[in-house]
């Protein structure tokens, strides 16, 4: 109450910065688990690694409520159109993390069955290496994405 005579505490910023900050702070991922990486993605979301620290624990089952698609695992030719449809259903602004070697490049499976890199279907913002990437790697990928968003490098 002694503060009443003091000048009001103000925080000034630009609208763009405020928007980017809020986008970064609550980026909800879509549950798009495909293969081995999905298990590590689940492990990242649970208590031991606790993705909630980055405001991301709310994995949304509906793409319409999600901002981020973590493509976790190998994308087969049969799954590719489904993946694209889920991406199209997501509302803007949206981001994509390609998790693991298979999603990024096809990994060790250079054959008839797999899409050789999910960036052939959807635009990818961050690639996370590993087979499968551990929870720490995924979290590093997520933090990289958040940095890119807040710095305006990935303006949507």
């Amino acid at each position: 109450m002694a503060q009443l005579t003091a000048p009001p505490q103000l925080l000034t910023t630009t609208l763009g910065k405020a928007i980017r900050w809020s986008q970064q702070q609550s980026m909800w991922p879509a549950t798009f688990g495909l293969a081995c990486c999905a298990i590590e993605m689940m492990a990242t979301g649970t208590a031991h690694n606790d993705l909630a620290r980055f405001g991301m624990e709310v994995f949304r089952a509906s793409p319409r409520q999600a901002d981020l698609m973590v493509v976790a695992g190998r994308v087969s030719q049969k799954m590719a159109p489904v993946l694209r449809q889920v991406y199209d259903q997501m509302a803007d602004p949206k981001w994509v993390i390609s998790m693991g070697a298979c999603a990024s490049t096809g990994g060790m499976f250079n054959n008839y069955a797999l899409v050789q890199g999910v960036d052939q279907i959807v635009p990818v913002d961050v690639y996370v290496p590993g087979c499968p990437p551990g929870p720490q790697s995924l979290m590093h990928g997520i933090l990289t994405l958040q940095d890119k968003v807040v710095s305006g490098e990935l303006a949507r």
Partner: protein
Amino acid sequence: MMAEPTATTDIWVSGTEAPDVSEWMVAGTDEGAQEMERDETVERSVEQRGSRVVDDWVVDDSVDDDERMIVNMGPQHPSTHGVLRLNIELEGEIVRRVKPIIGYLHTGMEKTAETLTFLQGGTNVTRMDYLAPLHNELCYSLATEKLLGVEIPPRAQAIRILMTELNRVSSHLVATATNGMDIGALSMMMYGFRERELILAFFEKTTGLRMNHNYIRPGGVAADLPDGWEEDVAEILERIPLAMRDYEDLLKENPIWLGRTRGVGIITADECLAYGVTGPTLRAAGVPWDLRKSQPYSGIEAYEFDVVTGSRGDVYDRYRVRIGEMHQSLRIIEQVVDTMPRGDYKTTDRKVSPPPRQRIDESMEALIHHFKIYTEGFKVPAGETYVAIEAPRGELGCYLVSDGSGAPLRMHTRAPSFSNLQALPIMMADSLVADTVACIASLDPVMGDVDR
């Protein structure tokens, strides 16, 4: 209206005039949705052999077609354990028919296996059932060794049992965790993954990776156990039974859990045998069938353990069987720790195993030998074999054909999840829509294992 394949165009004998299949080939690629349509000309019981759903459906013809609805579930769905897709035919709230559609994770692994040497093959098979990678490696290695006819040192065998039984515990932890999450017991998800991290930390220390280890290789294992492994395993043996008491408090007598699982997704022993269902699902139906007892591998017959069975074959019994199996696996691990033999961790047969590092510095021949094994791979005598082991999901088999070269001519995996998935339409006969996820979760299918 597209032409349906008829009996005459269905099978084409080469040498005769090829039928015009262009029209129904297009229909045939439409993911099977058209097969769900009613076809009055076909005897209904032929469509889905052995399914009680069909029989009931034939008797009850009073329901108007307008009251039936076909709902698509998946392949992108949080409760289908990956990319399983189901066509579910509903009559109000009752599931009448279910048609699982697979192939959304087809990775061409059996074909890839033909391009990799026997030594490299482990990297491939370990990615099939990614919740039980060590079992896949063990099965592949046992098949290769059977063709090679090499002796595996006792320590390597004991390490294999230790690692696969730990893997069984971690796999069942995920199964129980996801089963809980699907039915709404969200804390089970957190608990299950908490203890899994403990086992995975030990795996990372031993093999270098949390999953997809390529640790068990033809001829033995990739490396000896790390220093201080006894303490790590002792911690696992101490903490997991304590944690499992938490699970029992949470679920065992929980009225909501009982309501959602008791009497749900029942499958009888006869139906299991007819469909080739193995693993916890078969044992929950009351059949004490465990390959560790009936066809022991890797020296597991030396350890004492019981086969856990259920009696009713419902979702609750399958959950109980998994909990019981975790206790039995820990029992095996305890005995392995107590009786771990000393000696080599891989075979000393120089046809399979490269010379030790020290020899390479001393001898040119040893260097060449080492180089040849890691480039060409070792030669495996021509022949074919089938080896099966008890994976967490059931009988995991590896059929291997060698033509005498360094890579397999053909590799086929008998995937437990694939066979178990066939039982889904039977389990879900006349059940409620809400029980669908309970049934899927209790089967614990891994789509990487189904589609390969």
